[in-house]
């Protein structure tokens, strides 16, 4: 075996610089297109120029409805995510929702509790919520003890959140971000205390649980679009619009690729291009 390996020549890099495996050049090209589009769309959004409108996301109105209900009942609002890492795309979406919900709660003088499982994300969460209270003109109402790091371990965190929900009895619970096996534990904990629940999740395996146990669920891409929708931040708006343009373009490429594969399976130039 080792003789064969020694005899095998090293595969040269594609175009002299890319790893000699499928999809590398195509992925770089898509990334470059994406970077340019994001740059253009963000700039257009910042200047107030026209960019494609993001469609209304079902469930967005539920945020205000849920916070309003908590305010009327004089109970807290609770928000959580498993927040796997600082650079995770879902964590960035979570932060947009966090800023929006914290600001709404601050304006209505409703207690806001956020829990998470990553101590680095927690530091950022505290800064975001503090800023939200400042923007709402209520810096004194900000309580850092309500923006809690529970535990890094998945089920210790889930247990802590379930216990907190049972004790604090929030009237509204928001489950935003990327979740794993704990999703149903959290959603059921909210159900037991009669909280109105809104989930926005990007993990395909956990969305079914939220659909079953929550009042409103935003699925997959709606998490990111919802983040743009609520924040109205031109940077996020521009990013989501650019992402959608790339998504539609890739969709067309895949449709054409399927047709070409049917007509000429031996020589599908579209598939070869994607695999390059």
């Amino acid at each position: 075996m080792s003789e064969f390996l020694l005899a095998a020549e090293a595969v040269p890099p594609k175009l002299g610089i890319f790893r000699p495996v499928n999809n590398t050049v195509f992925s770089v090209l898509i990334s470059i297109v994406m970077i340019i589009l994001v740059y253009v769309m963000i700039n257009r959004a910042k200047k107030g120029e026209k960019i494609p409108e993001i469609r209304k996301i079902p469930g967005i109105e539920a945020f205000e409805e849920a916070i309003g209900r908590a305010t009327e009942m004089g109970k807290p609002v609770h928000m959580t995510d498993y927040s796997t890492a600082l650079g995770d795309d879902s964590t960035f979406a979570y932060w947009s929702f966090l800023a929006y919900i914290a600001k709404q709660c601050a304006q209505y003088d409703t207690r806001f509790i956020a829990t998470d499982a990553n101590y680095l994300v927690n530091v950022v969460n505290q800064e975001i919520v503090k800023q939200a209270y400042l923007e709402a003109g209520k810096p004194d109402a900000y309580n850092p003890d309500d923006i809690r790091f529970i535990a890094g371990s998945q089920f210790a965190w889930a247990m802590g959140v379930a216990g907190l929900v049972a004790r604090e009895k929030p009237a509204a619970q928001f489950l935003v971000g990327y979740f794993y096996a704990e999703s149903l534990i959290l959603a059921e904990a909210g159900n037991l205390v009669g909280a109105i629940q809104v989930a926005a999740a990007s993990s395909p395996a956990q969305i079914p649980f939220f659909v079953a146990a929550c009042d409103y669920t935003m699925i997959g891409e709606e998490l990111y679009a919802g983040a743009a929708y609520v924040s109205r931040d031109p940077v996020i708006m521009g990013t989501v619009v650019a992402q959608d343009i790339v998504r539609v373009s890739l969709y067309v490429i895949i449709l054409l690729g399927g047709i070409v594969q049917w007509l000429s399976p031996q020589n599908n130039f579209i598939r070869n291009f994607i695999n390059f």
Partner: protein
Amino acid sequence: MSRTQVWVAALATLACYSYLYKENFFFRLAEHTMIPLAVAHVLTTGWHNTFLPYIETHVKGKGWWWFWIFFVMGVLYYARFLPARWAWITRYPISVSVGWSLGYYFSLFPRQYGVQIADAVRDLGVFENILFFLMFATSMMYFFLTVGGNSKPFRTAAQWGRWILMVGFGASFGNTVSGRISLFLGRLSFLLTEWLGVAL
């Protein structure tokens, strides 16, 4: 497991399940034991599996003194506990960490989607592939955020896509619930056989 360990595991299991009745002292005891244990575990493993090996291998072994810069950056996270005049320093390690993580993910992600895109291009001469293609085409339309909103055929197709997604979610739900029941049965079997000594 020793008899003491079996007792601890059994009582902790019951304490956790007692939540199903209502939040109570025993659940709180289990919760307030589990969380500090988990945090202590992360701290200890971080110290022994990350910090000390890095010091031994890289700082002492290879002489990479600049690793101490990352140590200092880590310590700066605690600056938020300083008086407000200095607390802003904590934003520097945050920004470096966020920037680094983003770069890391950005370098990893595009290719994995490229592989999925290539896989979605299938021969439409086969029935299974036609079915896949129709499901893919309609369910993807549900996630278009900026186009087609005003077109009725588009909205109808996207609605079909939503139904297909729901069927998929239902299958996933059933599959996971059966997995959870199997986990519960495992726990029940532990309580009955190892703890209570019932012969099954």
